[in-house]
């Protein structure tokens, strides 16, 4: 092994990339020398990392970086690295995360394109890498590193688009977002995006929390893209969201998904999604049940979704009916709802407002107009109040 040490510094980019490819391939088959392979691979990757980002004491050399990045791309090292992430030894996983992130960040001098150059090339030629990064959530070992790369790369909407519009192709190809995407076409529900629901719902805490974090980034970073997508796939999306996340057995998932739901619905960019969501009586029911969850933070997050239903100036007949049917109960329930939150002014203001708004509802459902109709003055008042609410939020 000693000879390797001596040469480390001088090894050429091509040498580095080729040998790590070789080692990665050897890693997949058990040839009895696993430990040796791992050690060697870890060392190679560590050198690569240092070349790309420098060390605390030395800066990276732009020339070397350029050379290494282009070799990594031309030799297609990334797909191998990503798909073998879980097999890598502990430190090598972190080094790999750094390597991939650095490649994704790489820009040629004077480049003016939107995405960094290397990432752009990946998106055009090998978008499967992004999908495979997501698949890293399948395994505990790879979740952290893959998630870390993804969350950083999601800064670019093209990355989010690859995840959203991914569809399994029989030939194993990944969709070309620059040419093949039809935003009005409904998703089959088999793309990698939909797997996030399972990862969040079914994984251990560490993986689930990380996957949720990534899911949140996808939903909130590129709102325009996502709101269009959710609009197209509204039923599928909320079927999964409601049933797998909001109704999740896991306290963490339930609480976080309610919180995210409240944030998304109150976002201007998601206006259309919001109006569709709060039209549904079933959604209202679900949220009202969460108000009665025995855990106060769940109650609290549910409150912030519930208020949107009540503030909606154009409540659907169904929603109005449910609210009216429960008017007295709500009026009894709300004043004492989380009443120890004395120092949360916004919450108390909104609660007081809700009580008032619900108090203004008719006492019996017979007073309601047939589906679709609303009284003009109700609409006017609520609009005003709703905008107030949105600002406060």
């Amino acid at each position, binding site marked *: 092994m000693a000879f390797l040490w001596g040469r480390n510094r001088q090894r050429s980019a091509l040498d580095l990339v080729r040998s790590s490819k070789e080692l990665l391939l050897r890693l997949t088959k058990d040839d009895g020398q696993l430990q040796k392979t791992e050690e060697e691979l870890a060392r190679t990757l560590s050198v690569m990392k240092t070349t790309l980002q420098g060390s605390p004491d030395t800066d990276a050399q732009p020339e070397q970086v350029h050379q290494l990045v282009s070799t990594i791309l031309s030799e297609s090292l990334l797909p191998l690295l990503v798909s073998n992430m879980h097999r890598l030894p502990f430190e090598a996983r972190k080094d790999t995360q750094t390597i991939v992130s650095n490649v994704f960040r790489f820009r040629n001098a004077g480049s003016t394109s939107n995405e960094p150059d290397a990432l752009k090339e990946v998106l055009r030629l090998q978008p499967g890498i992004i999908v495979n990064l997501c698949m890293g959530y399948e395994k505990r070992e790879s979740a952290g590193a893959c998630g870390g790369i993804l969350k950083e790369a999601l800064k670019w909407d093209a990355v989010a688009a690859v995840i959203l519009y991914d569809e399994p192709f029989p030939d194993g190809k990944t969709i070309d977002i620059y040419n093949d995407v039809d935003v009005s076409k409904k998703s089959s529900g088999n793309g990698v995006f939909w797997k996030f629901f399972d990862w969040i719902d079914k994984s251990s805490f560490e993986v689930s929390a*990380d996957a949720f974090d990534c899911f949140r980034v996808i939903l909130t970073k590129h709102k325009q893209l996502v709101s269009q997508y959710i609009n197209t796939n509204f039923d599928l999306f909320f079927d999964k969201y409601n049933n797998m996340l909001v109704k999740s057995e896991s306290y963490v998932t339930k609480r976080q998904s309610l919180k995210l739901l409240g944030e998304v619905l109150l976002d201007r960019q998601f206006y259309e999604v919001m109006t569709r969501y709060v039209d549904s009586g079933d959604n209202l029911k679900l949220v009202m049940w969460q108000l*009665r969850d025995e855990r106060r933070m769940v109650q609290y997050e549910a409150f912030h979704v519930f208020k949107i239903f009540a503030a909606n100036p154009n409540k659907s007949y169904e929603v109005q009916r449910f609210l009216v049917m429960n008017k*007295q*109960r709500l009026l009894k329930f709300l004043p004492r709802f*989380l009443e*120890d939150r004395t120092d949360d002014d916004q919450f108390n203001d909104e*609660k007081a407002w809700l009580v008032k708004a619900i108090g203004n509802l008719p006492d019996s459902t017979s007073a309601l107009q047939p589906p679709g109709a609303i009284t003009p003055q109700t609409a006017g008042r609520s609009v005003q109040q709703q905008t*107030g609410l949105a600002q406060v939020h």
Partner: protein
Amino acid sequence: MADDYQMLEELGSGSFGVVYRALHIPTAEYVAIKHIDLEGSDDDIREIQQEISLLATCNSPYVTSYRASFVRGTKLWIVMEYLGGGSCLDLLKPGPMEEKYIAVVMKELLQGLDYLHSTGKIHRDIKAANILLSDAGLVKIADFGVAAQLTNIKSQRLTFVGTPFWMAPEVIQEAGYDFHADIWSLGITAMEMAQGEPPRSDIHPMKVLFIIPKEHPPRLEGNRWTKEFKDFIALCLNKDPEKRPSAKMLLKHAFIKRAGRPDMLRELVLRARDFEQNGRAMDRDVRYYEETLKSMSSADEEDDWVFDTVRPSKNATRKAVNTAKHTVKRRKLQRIPSGNATNVENATAALEAMNLDAAPLGDITNASTTGTTRDMSTIRTPKPRIASSRKVSAITARKISIASPTSRRVSRNISSHAPPTRPVSAAHPASKQPLGPDMSFGNSTSTVRQFKRVSSGPKPTISPLQQPPQTTSSPIEDPSPFDSDAENRPPPVHPVVAPPSLPSTKEAILGRRAFTKALDPSFQETHASTSDQTKREALSHVAEAWSNLNAVDPEGELLLLKSMMDRIQADPKLASALLPARVVNAQLASLRGNRSPVKGGGKKSGSVVVMVAEETAEETDAEAMQTSTPTKGSNVRTSSTPQQSPSKPQAQQQSPGGARLVLNPQNPHLQRMRSGQQLSATTAEKDAKALSSPPPPPVMASLLDEKMPGRIEPGLEHVGLLGDVLFGRWAEGLRMRWPVA
């Protein structure tokens, strides 16, 4: 997963939860398990998750190793390796360390730091309390509660975190810092071990924050120490981070080079253990883990929501409900008395129906948990405790009868050193306190205080001076039944139409607020500045008693406060001593009042009656300036903008003729202060208003005379109430400005 562990005794409580020793049954290995109650805070779970992912990416013999984490109920369990030797701080209990031991600890610590730094992590809270030892004397870095992971090795951080005494100047100055910040803390830690306390530990931690960047860095002095050691510390404590050596370079320092092997430290561990056993044997009160049993009873059928269909899957059984049921339920609904919540029975019934009592935090509805979201500042187990280690033994906080999970979180920070400040995400609207001292009462002889500070991000979230503009004015138009005189009259006498919103609880809410905003912080502040042990104890008893009152009877608390404030206000000497801001305001008011003067008959105590035209909601704009710039309205104004929405409309409603009156003793020597005050534009505006307003009818004046000192006139109680609200805000504002001053 949880079933694999057999929980044993409590080891201590850290910055974020209680730590227990446990046996991992499959491997028969001891582990330490940290329980974090996720219900306990509004904080995003992401923060905790970050700590875990940071730990999970550490793999070094010099860093406490992470095993697993999972959620059970609302608690997050983090399983870590168990280190039986206690913390370095525990080793200091018998007395400061000898240099040879310090060298060993430093050497091991530097290797740990080198590892962390090479993987892009900054610990940001290096101090003796966060350095753990195994039984064999191995040294490990622990508590990554505020550590940072850099995505780019060259990037810098800005967040203001750490524990004051150990914080590097560049961290305090928030000018961007990197790994070198840990090296500073390391130097301070070395001094801490040599002297038993970090330098400047006699100074209040908030004051230290100014001193560190301003003054020369501390140095180790005296003949007891070798030149190498002093030099080592001087290198670490260089105010210019660029000139501070890296961990790797320090490992080559002569002081480190001649350090012995870590098993030397076993002697220290034994010494600490002996000390512990001999000194504290009597105080042993081992606390064992106990499962919180909660009945997960589902909500009472009777009062569940009514949708004519089925329940959500959460209440597992999906019942087929026919349309008939719908009607039946509707009829029941109508029997329920309408939502006039002043009806206590109704309220109770509603509460029972809501089944909040059955919730995991059994005492949600009970006042005592006001603090779940703010326990960073609330005293909850004020019981004096003996300074103790993270050892099994010395935790004396006895079980509290309502031992809910939350109440247990309280006995934090056994080791009596401050847990670090956490980075605070600016997005959180509530529940974060800007600068609240944070400590358990009387639990230590140490002078270290805990406190947290809001990150200097775009906007400090909750500066009390920046309360969002009153949005309430529109929602609550109805006068709220905020009347402190309630106890004197039967409720029905109040013709006040209670809105269906939170009526009879308003006082309770204010009472709670007074406690959390004013009383509790003042207790903590006073406690913090009291050094005498007996005095501290006495004080913590009062604090405990008061927190009991707050728990049991917030209304009573408010009334008590009110009457205290009234009496103080009524006595000119006390008023000028205790309520200077108010007096100044009053002074200003009276001066201005002189222009449209109404001397209150001048009979008693020279009080001045100021009459002001109706002040409306627009004033809230000026509210932000209220504490800093005394505006004319003084108490009058205050009363109209008590910041806590509901009382405002009330105040207006109570004074007939749309004008309000205030009595205040004139205090001539305060006049001098007036020149220093600025009068804002709004003030000028209001001056004009005041001028144009008609003088008050004489009747009014004589009315006022009747109720001079000690007399409480029905209808004017709000003055006292608002007085304490104001006082609370004043105290809070003071705390806010402290670090910035």
